[in-house]
Structure formats: C-alpha cells, structure tokens
C-alpha cells in the first residue's frame, strides 16, 4: 500500500495502542472513537483517493 509502510515494531506498537484505546473507549463508545480516529488519519493523509482505497480494502472479507 505505497512506499511509506510501518516497520514491524511500529506496526506492533500501533496494534497494541489501538486495542488498548478501544478497550478504554468502552463498548458503547468504541465505534465513535474509531470514526474520529479515521477522520484524523484522513486529515493527515490529505488524499481522498488514498482514503477511499483504504475504505475499499477495509470493506473486504468482513
């Protein structure tokens, strides 16, 4: 997915941080939390087409 990929330690760090944050947000608020996170990431990405590609990838195999 592009040249800027996470290192394995980096990916592991994100994995733990996201799991911990979902637990911290709680069952009722985790969905809201994840949408906020997605919007912040999209803002940093600054590329609607790349974001759309991420949406398409994430929608696969649900």
């Amino acid at each position, binding site marked *: 997915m592009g040249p800027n990929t996470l290192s394995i330690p980096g990916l592991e760090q994100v994995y733990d941080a996201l799991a911990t944050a979902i637990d911290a947000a709680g069952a009722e608020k985790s*969905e*809201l939390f994840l*949408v*906020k996170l*997605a*919007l*912040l990431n999209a*803002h940093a990405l600054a590329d609607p087409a790349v974001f759309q590609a991420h949406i398409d990838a994430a929608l696969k195999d649900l």
Partner: protein
Amino acid sequence: MHQPHAEPRRSIYYPYQVFDAWLPSQHPQPQHHAVVIAGAGPIGLVAALELARHGVKCVLLESERQVSEGSRAIVFTRRSMEILQQVGVADHVTQNGLPWRFGNSYYRGQRVFRMEAPHDPDDRFSPMINLQQQYLEEYLIDAVRANPLIELRWGNRVNAVTQDGQGATLEVDTPEGPYTLRTDWLVAADGARSGIRSMLDLKLEGASYEGRFVIADIRIDLPLPTERLAFFDPDWNPGNTILMHREPHGIWRVDYQLPPGEDAEAALKPESLKARIDAQLAMIGHAGVPWVMDWCSVYSARALTLPDYVHGRVLFAGDAAHLLPIFGVRGANTGFQDAQALAWRLAFVVKGLAAAPLLAGYSSERVGAAREIIDEAGKSTRFMTPPTRGFRLLRDAVLSLSLSEPFVGPLYHWRTSRPHEYRHSPANSAGDDNALFQAGPGHGAPPQNVRLGADDHLLDHLDHHFSLLYFTEGAAVPDALTEVVTELRAKGLPLRVIAVGSAQPVTGADETLADADGHLRERYGVLASGAAYLLRPDQHVCARWMGLDATRLRAALINAAGLNKEV
C-alpha cells in the same frame, strides 16, 4: 364557493389587514388576459412587478384575503435584496430588517465553528437581512397596488386549469362562486402545496428527509446580537439540532428538531412547546426569561424539484416549482431568482419580440439552479438530520472532534443560498471573449456590485433593459455600435448603453460613469478602451468582450433575447 378567512390572523406584532375579495359580479367584462399569476406570495408579487417594469399587464390571483400566516421566510440574502431593489422595495427592507453576517455552531456549550459571510466593500447590501415575511409581502403589495398594470384579486382561488396551444382556461372560485378566466400564460407561484402542480399531475423529483422541526416565533428580550445560532445534540434534546434567529420587533425564531416518531399534533401542544423552549433558554443561560408565543408550525426537510418549469402555457416558479430545505435560507431566496429569470423572458414573448422557445432557457437555468441547491442542501441536511446510522456516526464523530480539532469546523457550514451562475445557458454568447478575462463576472454570472461613490453603486444604474457597459476613454460610442443599438431598439428591444471611464458624457451612451479611479474597470477585468459587458434584464452576464465590434454585439443580443427571425 371559496370562503377565505375574513378575520385578521392573530399575531402579537403584526397588524393583519383583511382586503376586500374581488367579485366577478362587480366586473362584468370578459376575462381574457395575457398573463395571470396564481399566488400573491413574495414570488408571485415580484414576478408581477418585474412584468410591469416591462410594460406587461397581469392579473394576480390570491386565494386568501391577507398576507402570510406567521413569519415564514425571515432571512433574505444580498442577491434577493438586489432583486428587491429593482422592484422598488429594498429600502423598506433595509430600514426595518436586521442585517447580519455571522453564524455560530455550538456543541457542549462550546462554540465550535463561526461562519463569516463575506462582505465586499463594493456591496450595497449586507450578506443577510432578517425580516418577517408579512412585512416583505406588505411592501410588495403596496408597490403592486400603486402599479396600474397589475390587478390584484384577493380571495380568488384557482379551482381548475385546462390548456390548449394558445393559452389556459381557469375556473376561479370566489366568495360568490366561480367564474371563468382565459389567459395566454399562467404563472404558477401558488406555493409549496401548489394546487396547479396537482391539477397538472406533475411530480417533484428528489429526496424527503426524516427529520422534522418545530418552527416557533416567540417574543422575548434576549441580549444577543443578530447572528445565526445552531446548537447540536444538547442535553435537553439528545442527538437533535436547534436553530435560533433574531427577527425585528423583539421576536426570536426557535427551530428545534423533534425526536423520531413524534407527531406534529403532540409537538405543537402548548405544554410541549413550553417545556422545550424553556429548556433551550436555560441551556443558553437565560432560564426563566419571560416569553410569549406568536406562531408555530412543524416542518420537514425536503429537497425536490419539478424536472421542467414550463408546461405548455403554464410556468412554475418558487415553491410551486421546488421544495428546498430551510437550513440554507433557500426558499424565498431561490424563488426571487426564478421570478427575475422568468419575467423578462415572458415579457419578451408576450410583446412578440421573442418566440416561446425563449422560455425553455428559463426552465433550464432555474432547474439547473434548483438541482445545484438540492445537492448542496443535501449535504447540510445530512449533517443536521443524519438519515442513517453511518451518517449519524460521522456527524457525532465530527461534533466530538470539533471541540479540539478545528479542521472539521467547515463541516458545520450550512452552505448559504447563493446566486446561481448560468455558465451553460443558451443565452450566453458563443463568439465573445469570455475566456480572455482574468477578473469580473463571467458567462451567466450575476454582476459584481461596485461602489461608485457615497450611496452610489453600479447596480443602482441598471434597470429592466439589457445593459451594455461600454468601457471607453473616448468621446463617443463608435458609429457602428450605435447603429446596431438603434436598429434593435427600433424593433422593440429594451437596451441601455452605459459608458464607463470618461469624465465627460459619452455620445451615444444613455449614461456615463466616470470611474475616475478605475475601480470598476479593475473589478471587471477591463484592460483597455473598447471592452464591454452585456447584462441581461435580470443583470446576469451574457457576453463580454475585450474589444467590441458591431457584428458580435448584434449576434449576442439576438441570441440572448431570442429575437424572432422576422425581427
């Protein structure tokens, strides 16, 4: 037999006047007219006044015997004011309305977005002005009653319409029974529940939204400026939206969204209204301030349009033609532009200057405008009243983010009504120099106003004619151009020539604007003498040239005005 209310409507601030019904027995002459307008709301009234400016008579039928019930349309945009200026009532609105330009969105007690409507120093009118619809109708009715070309018939309701190739036949009901009225053209400006639209069995296209709002006008003394206030997801009305606007005469409009499933009857019960308005006042820090209800109603957001506004001899305008969500002040403000775009074309057709196909341009321009507005309004509406779980999640995520992340703020923007640019209008000239200009209003755009001096603006100098702005430092308009102007005027085309850029009156021009500091030329991207703009009677640009010649002027005028071949 049609029996409109004979008692004045109740209001704590507006003194309703009941007018005498027009009765056919008192007017025994045969009833055949060139133009009949159904509906004396703001759009029908403006259409009648615009037609009269072109010297075209009309009969204006109004089912009721008094002006609108409740304040209804309360926010008028700059472009509406420019249109109202043309029909002579803008000064009244300016004197009595409340101008404003800021909108504020609140979430959890924090202002999360502040909208600032741009105000160009060259503009005469503020971006918005608030005034209750009854007053606007009153000013327009005063102008109509003073105009000998308009016959306003109160208490006359259209019951039936049939049409043939030459016109429409109406059955009009009155307090003493029906009469028959024949007209060459019928303008249907009979509002959101247009009876004529139903009689012709025409279907609106678009979307209706679930969210329903109570609209309430209360008299209350609140120490707040005239700015739009929007409150999202407050504790007293979770998940829903509340809007507030200041109106003249100490009145505030409070709109609040109803919880899903609540019906209108329950929502309008006095105890329900009181509890909710009190809760809203408490939330904004004014608990217990006394207030009195003037008028209330229930509203649901719809974004619908007829796909064509011309149906044989019947022409639709305003809410009869389209239903637009109120959040962007798009109802009356869109309708005025309809009336303005329709009237000059209808006048040209009635006077035999142009053939009926000119009216197709009205439909294509205004249906295009409505579709653009529906697209924009849909975005606001999906934010204000999210239609699905996904849209609600995103909206709630934006509310939450907005407390700390300003980048989401613009999503609160309610995309205010703005004038449509008729970029692809058939009225635009194909052979001009539009693409060469680096500044100024382009093809189909409304004009940019320009301040010429104290209480003196460019649009003050425009009227119902085509306006040729001819930029020159010379002493005279070239003879070849004057010959075209003279030839087309002789055929009935209303055309004025305004020279710009000379200190002395320019020969061949009806008026000369000195533009001593070159500001008008700068705003219009004019680089040298010989440039020109051609504005239609509704002021939209239909051609502009870096160097005007007679052949191209003639072609542009014939095209835009749809002049008959034999002309």
